[in-house]
């Protein structure tokens, strides 16, 4: 089993004596603004017609990490998004934040993918891109919030997954990650190529200035349809029929607030009244 991303080898690129250039793909998702009123449609899918969309803010940390690693290794950062037309906005934002070019995979046949389907399409696009040393992702999307995509993406690519990096760097063809879990702190390392998800503790995303915004307009963005990523799926042993069909939304509705909610202003006895309420509700 190969642990390299198939595609043109990166060996031989860069001039002799230089550090090897690291080619990084950063996965970015377009999501509704978390501060806006978000809703699900009758089909259980997120309504994306509200207009208040942005780059998933947790992906800004992934882009920032990618840009920093690329700067240290004279590498290249490619921003990749799967989604409807507004995926272009996520990629554009990543270009403003320092990625050098973009790839958008968009196709009507890909509407409503689940997390595994999304991961498989991302894996196929990484394979089509070829010669990739490092794939970076955010820790979660603020809409679906499954955190499943990074690990699934690594599994499809047959690469090591290093999830939830609070710190990440690359040296001598090895990626080093520190992660802070509930019960332990872990120091991880793995040979490249690898997939790393980055938390919001990893860095402070930069805020693009006017020049960066102007420069991003000139950066190339390639659009791919499903047919163009099928060769990538095939070389990973996957086929388009596995992209969906695992679940069906039965219903989705707004959470009903409890009807017995209480709001009191403290006149000196609110603490005592709350104690009685907690006992009454059998909560303590």
């Amino acid at each position, binding site marked *: 089993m190969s642990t390299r991303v198939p595609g043109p080898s990166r060996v031989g690129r860069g001039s002799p004596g230089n550090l090897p250039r690291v080619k990084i793909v950063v996965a970015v998702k377009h999501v509704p603004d978390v501060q806006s009123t978000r809703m699900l449609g009758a089909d259980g899918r997120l309504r994306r017609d509200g207009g208040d969309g942005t780059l998933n803010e947790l992906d800004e940390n992934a882009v920032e990490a990618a840009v920093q690693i690329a700067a240290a290794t004279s590498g290249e950062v490619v921003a990749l998004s799967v989604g409807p037309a507004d995926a272009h906005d996520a990629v554009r934002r990543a270009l403003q934040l320092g990625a050098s070019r973009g790839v958008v995979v968009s196709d009507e046949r890909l509407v409503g993918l689940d997390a595994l389907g999304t991961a498989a399409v991302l894996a196929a696009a990484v394979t089509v891109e070829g010669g990739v040393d490092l794939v970076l992702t955010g820790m979660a999307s603020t809409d679906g919030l499954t955190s499943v995509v990074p690990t699934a993406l690594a599994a499809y690519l047959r690469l090591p997954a290093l*999830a939830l990096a609070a710190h990440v760097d690359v040296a001598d063809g090895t990626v080093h990650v520190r992660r802070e879990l509930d019960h332990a702190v872990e120091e991880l390392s793995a*040979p490249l190529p690898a997939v790393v998800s980055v938390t919001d503790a990893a860095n402070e995303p930069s805020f693009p200035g006017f020049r960066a915004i102007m420069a991003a307009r000139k950066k190339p963005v390639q659009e791919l349809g499903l047919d163009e990523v099928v060769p990538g799926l095939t070389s990973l042993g996957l086929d388009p029929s596995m992209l969906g069909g*695992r679940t069906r939304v039965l219903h989705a509705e707004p959470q009903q607030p409890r009807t017995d*909610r209480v709001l009191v202003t403290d006149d000196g006895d609110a*603490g005592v009244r709350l104690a009685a309420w907690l006992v009454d509700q059998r909560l303590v």
Partner: protein
Amino acid sequence: MTTLVLLDHDDDGTPRPAALELVTAARPLGEVHGVWVGDGLDAALPGLADAGVLIVHRLPADVWWPAALAEALHAVRSATGADLVLLASTSEGKEVAAGLAVLDGAAVVTDAERVERVEGALRVTKSVLAGTWVSTVEVTSPVAVVTLEPNAVRAEPAAAPSSPQVVDVQVAVSELARSVTVVRTPRQATGRPDLATADVVVVAGRGVDGHLSPVEELADLLGGAVGATRVVADEGWLPREQQVGQTGVAVAPRLYIGVGVSGAVHHRGGMQSAGTVVAVNSDPDAPIFEFADYGIVGDLFDVLPALTAELRRLRELA
């Protein structure tokens, strides 16, 4: 139908509270098989018998890393023909779920609050979009991997205890699953319950202004865990691992008490499944009052000591 449950336990072999909740959730769905990694099973068997686990598949300790555990679970799942694998909705649980679902070609649903079987098909319900919506999906593939929120189900003993059979499983884990070098340093125990699975969580927000003792006293009286907003972690008033929210620990306690917490959407994303939400905040317009079940507009330094003293008094009366 068989459900496979990953029986999380701590280093000395005590099952984590979530493990028995998972077993309780699995029982109405069919036969329950557990999966145990490493040592300490013997001491846990009586508890698993009370919970009605029929078979425990014991894996060697060295498959604990998520990629390796996913491969091992895949082997057990295939051998048992289970159509559902239940794991706890923790960050590591989700990693295992993702890897396993890829190997099994399974549906994966995270952060579930309820799993049912209706006319043979599995249905999973969860709260989404920071607790503002609820959605139910039906699994349409042969296998599902579901991560269940802590405290979504109350752990209860089975109607009749089982006598679990222990099966030692040998698995050959791939090179790939061993390709990450890991140096793991366990955190020191805090003496309080584990935040992610605690039944009661008291969260301190910026309003505490560095004074944690009223929050800690209340939490200790209730046997609860102490959480922090990101601001409180940023200020260094509490350690980062106690941050509750979308980028911190996701909590789902039966009782959440937020004091001096504004209720920002990023915070709500990590506590959307709390059973009852109590808020104490001096600002009547604080967003937390939009979703609190019991809200007090007031100064936390007045309300909290009064609450703690009254609860203590009531307890002494009882």
